[in-house]
Every structure is written in C-alpha cells, then in structure tokens.
C-alpha cells in the first residue's frame, strides 16, 4: 500500500508512533489470516505480535520493492512455521474464542439461518484443518486474505506455478470433504 511508505520512513527516522499506525492498519487483517494458519487464536495472536516486533526491529532491511504487508506476512508465516515446529499445545479456535472473547465478526445472515450457518462454518473449518500446512496456507492467503497468486508467491517465496498447483490441490481436497455441502448449496 502506497500509504505505508511515509509511515515507514517516519518510523525509520525514529517515530515509533508511525510504526504504531502500521500495526493498527494491519493487525486485524494479519490476525484473521493467522488464526487459520496457526490453528488457534492464541497462537495467532502471538505470531502477529512477534511479526510486528520483528518488523519493527528489522525495518531498515525492508527495501520497499514489495508491499509492506507482503514483507510483514512473510515474517509472520516464517514465525508461524517456526511456532508449528515447536508443537506448542494449542487451543482450538472455538475454545480460544470462549477463553479470550475473540468473537469473529459475523458477515450477516438472518437469525433463522444462524444454526445452519454455524454448522456450515464448523464443517468448512474442520475440512481446512485437515489440509496439510502448505495447502492450507495458500488457500487462506487466497480466500481469506484475498491475495493474488503473485503476492502469495512473494509471501511464501514460491513460484506462481507452485501456488496455483497447491491451491488447486487444496481445493480438490476440500471439495472431497465438503461435497455434500457444496452440492446442496448448488441446488
């Protein structure tokens, strides 16, 4: 985002508040992505926070040839991968939601359809959780965060072809698991 450049410059000149504004700008977006990647709200929060801290400390290494959030996401995904290796006991999203009060933002829906919608959400989440990490990461960046292939490739340091194939495999696995649901939707 072009608006990031002045804030980055200010932060590099010592205005930490400018970096604070960058945090405010991206914290929810990154967190929403990381909830699905890290597997729990708690882990996602840690990853997001750590990512911003690293970004601040390493800000002078940001060359500006990519978007700030791309660079930030790269840090975050590296941290998430590192965290996953540590196999820290995690808390499920629903459990974390109850524990930390992180209520997801509802995207609407009539009250009478809430139960059905909730069930659908649970099915989709469960299917996504069963994806392997590489596939899930690409899928989340594409569908949750709305990144294009090039951005995903930049964040994950992959070739675009790899992004496309991983995304296809992720979708095909999800399709298998959610076939009944999808066909019902298509009726």
């Amino acid at each position, binding site marked *: 985002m072009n608006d990031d450049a002045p804030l980055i410059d200010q932060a590099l000149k010592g205005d*930490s508040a400018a970096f604070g504004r960058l945090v405010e700008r991206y914290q929810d977006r990154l967190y929403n992505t990381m909830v699905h990647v890290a597997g729990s709200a708690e882990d996602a929060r840690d990853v997001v926070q750590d990512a911003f801290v690293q970004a601040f400390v390493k800000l002078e290494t940001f060359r500006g040839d990519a978007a700030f959030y791309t660079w930030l996401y790269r840090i975050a995904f590296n941290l998430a991968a590192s965290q996953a290796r540590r196999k820290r006991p995690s808390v499920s999203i629903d459990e974390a939601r109850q524990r930390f009060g992180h209520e*997801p933002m509802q995207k609407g829906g009539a009250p009478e359809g809430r139960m059905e919608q909730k069930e659908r959400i649970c099915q989709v989440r469960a299917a996504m959780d069963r994806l392997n990490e590489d596939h899930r990461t690409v899928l989340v960046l594409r569908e949750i965060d709305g990144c294009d292939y090039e951005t995903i490739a930049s964040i994950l340091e992959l070739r675009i072809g790899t992004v496309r194939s991983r995304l296809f495999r992720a979708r095909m696995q999800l399709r298998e698991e959610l076939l009944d649901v999808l066909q019902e939707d298509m009726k």
Partner: protein
Amino acid sequence: MAKTSQDELLSAYIDGELSDAQRAEVEERLAKDADARQLVSELRALKESVRSLPAYRLEEDLARRVLQRAERAILTGGVDDEATESEGPPSSSEPPKPWTRPLLRERWRRVYLWPVLAVAATLLIMFMIPNRTARIAQVDQKRMADEAAQKSKSSSTSPAGKVAELSPSAEPVADVEPERFESLRAVPENAKAAPGIPHGLAKQPSVASKSDGTVLGHRFRRKMAGRVESPTEGEEGRLLEEEKAKENFFADDSADQVASQLLIVRVDIAESTIPPDAIAALFSQQGIAFEDVPPQETEARAENADNESDENLERERAAEEASQLGRSADEVELVYVEATAGQLKKTLKALSTDTDRFTSIAIEPAPEVAAQRELQKWYMQRGGEASHVKDRPRGATDGAVADAPATAKSSRAKGAEAEADRKGVLGEKDQLGRERLGRIVASQAQQRPTSNAGFGGVGAGAGVGGGVGGPPGRAQRLSLPPEIKESLATAKNRSDVVQRLQNNAGRNEGAGNEKNSDVEGLSSLKADKVGGKRDEKSGPDRPHARPLVQTLFVFRRPAPAADLSHETDRDETPAKSDQ
C-alpha cells in the same frame, strides 16, 4: 494436457489468474465439457464457503505492546522471543541475534540512547507514610503559612521574622507517626523544639530559626561519604560501555534544552523492610556516591545567612521550610541524585528486581523531554518483567506503563490528574508544593559541603562531570514537606520547579559564592551537556564531563492498618490498579 493440469487451469480460471490464451482455452473446454462446468461450479461454491467464514479481529490495541517489545528487543540486542530471520528460513534453534547492524544501532541511537544519555538528571527520592488526616491538616496550615510568608516578605527581611511567620504552618506530622521511618528519617532523634518557637510549633522539634545556628545542620545525617565501586559484571558493565561510547552525542543544543527538566520516579516500598541505610546502599551500589550534609557545615551556613541579600531571603525561607520538613521526615525522605543514564538504569533495575522491598515503581517524565519519556519506556519494559515476579503487585509501574510508549505525555498527564483526583485535597497541595520546590531543593543543596566536586565531601570522583576513578553520580538525602512531595508525585508543571532550581543556582554562580559551589553544580549540569565547562572548573584531573540525567523518584510506604483507616489507606497509598 493431462486432466489434472486442465483442472488446475479451471481453479486458476475462477481466480482470474489465467493469461488470455489460457482463459480462452478454458472457456472453450467449458463450452464442451459438462464435467468441467460442474467442477467450476463446485469450486466457486467452495470458494464462497471459505470466504464466508467469519473474520476474526484482535480485541486489543496491539501497537502499544508491539512497540514496547520492539524497543526492548533493540535494547537487549535482539528480538526477544523469536530468533527467526524475517528474510531467511525460520530456525527456532538460533539464538537471538545480537544487535550488530550499524543501521539498527543508528536508529536506536537516534531514538533512544542519544536523547536519554544527553539529559542531566536530578533524583529526588521520597519515602512517604500516608496519613490523610495529618496531611490535610498540614495542607491547610501550609497554605496559611504561605500566605503569611508572602506578607512577611513584603514587610520584613529578617530571617527570624520569616520563621515566626512561617511557624503556624508547622503541623506536628511527626506526632502522628513518631516512630515511622525512624531508620529513614533525615531528622535526628535529638531534634527538639527550639526556644522561642511560637505556639503551634511546640510539637515540632525540627522547626527552628536559622539564627540558632544548629537546626539546619541537624537536618541531615551522613549516611555514606564514600563512593562504592560500581558493579562491573555483565549488563551493568555493558551499559557503562555504551554510555562511554555515546558521549560524543551530548554536545548538542538539544541536550542543553532537555537537561533543564526533572524526571520523577515514584516507588512504593514494602513496610518494615527497609533498613536504615538501604537507600544509601541502593545508590552506592550503582556507583552513585551518597551523602548527607554534615551538621556543622549547615550550621556555618546558617550563621552567615543573616548577611545574605534580599535575593537570597527567599531561599533562606525555603531553608526554613526545609527545616520544617525535617520534622516531617518521619513521613518523608528525599534523596537528590545526579547520575548518568546508565546509573539510573541500574538503579531502576535494582529497584524493580527487589520486589521484597519495593512493590511498585512509576516513572513520570517531564512532559516536553522526549529523552525522559524514552527512559520511562526503558524502565517500563523492565517494569513489565518485574510485574511478573511472584507476589509483586501490578501497581504504579504497570499503570504508568499503560499508555506511555506512544503517548507518554498524555499518559503522564492523565496519571497525574487521576492521582490528584484520587487524593482530593492533595490536589491543593500540588500547586503549593510545586511553587516552593525549587527554592527548597536549592536551599537543601546549599547545605551541601563546599567542594569542587559539586556534591562535595563525597569524593573527588563524585561530582558532575565524573571523576577519574569511576562514573559520575552523586546522591544527597534531602527533606521536603509531605505536601510538596505529594505535589512532586502529581507534578503537572515541573518546569516551574526546575526553573526555580536553576535560577537559584544561577544566582549563586553570579554572586561568586564559593560556599555555594554545590549549588553551582546544579546549573553546571547544562554546561556539562553543551561543552564540558565543568571540566575547566574541575581541573585537569577530571578529563571528561560525564552527562547526568535529571530524574525524580517518589517512594511511598503503606500505612499500617492499626494507624490508618481503610479510607486513608486507599487514598494515600499509591494506586495499584487505577494509575
């Protein structure tokens, strides 16, 4: 083309990620292949299902915490929790990377170290025993005394007359808690009411006229006269090295500008855990020489007081007030310190880690001095750690931390206002005390023995500018009225205080008063930061002016339940949760 590859194109097709040629190819297939059309429909439905998942958002402002941690990471030489390189493959086994990149060093220097180390500091450390009843009465009488003193100033220049005018202000605070802080009090046990003290002062042994030639000298006890070897191990040594390395950044006008401010630090102390010389030891262990003014020297100064000019009368009056403070030393103790940023940091570290004795710490920087805010931030980062120590109350430290990093000024103001509001009548004390602080501190400083080292008599290396044998740093036990100390704790306009202090120092310099060379040391703080003028005065054996930081610490002690009501306790003990 294999079917999988063709289907992969369908997936990319719904994402709009195909070239024109590929899209044409897919559309041609879709026109002919029902299965392909079915798959595309399913993939689109799937896409919609995933996209319709509820969005999560953080229910907190992450910026403050991120900035705290990031600055701490820079301070400690690396990202604290994660060793992962952002632009390389993650590796959880890597140790935190040392802070070695010049760019990062430069940023740190620019943001933190330079301004922090550029400031000269005064530490005023106070220990209070909260007692609402006594303090309310004292405020009322202090206010009366102030008004009376103003009248006295216009009608009489006699110090004795001024004392007589001031005397109604004396409130027998010591009577309320005579044994409290016995070990910390600045007033000696043998201080008694001086003959001729008007009614109202009879119970105030420390209040006396200067003409008796003894009172001021009895206000202080020498706790420590020598320097203690500064710690050399680990981080402390590193801090000193950093200071030394950054000294060339001090020769700047902005350093002079920020040097004229006090930083206030408030510390709650645990009850009955502070041995008599704990405060002296606290500073001396950080290489800060600690002293009390010897009685005989203040006596001599008092004898000469009658010959001082009208300009000094106000300071004399402040001395009298300071002597009144002595009687309230049961409640209050104050230590005036000039030390380097590194020494301050070490002091803060010692305070924050000694959770048995010091239960909470808050730093209140002067509003316009960014360097002090940065020092505050530095401490708060450590305070955050300390708050996790078992049994350590999450008190003023965390409260001060709460809003400070990005908006330290507003946080400070809010904290001060909240405290003033919480204490009610103390808000009135605030203004009263603030107006007198400069005079009183200068007067107290005036009692310091004459020495080229600024804080004289402590040791050759203890003055402003530092000595040959170690880092600069000096502390002196002072005494202030409780209400003034309260006002320090809720300072809203400290610049006035500092201005008075420096004005006093400036007068002393202009008069060429050799006896006040210690006061001169106050103003010479500025010279230290802009060019090391102090060095010229200090002689060739003091090769380098070491910058000193101005700070103000407020230490409080909880009142015992037997003596104070719960209400008093709530009102007077520092807030643990609402600051």
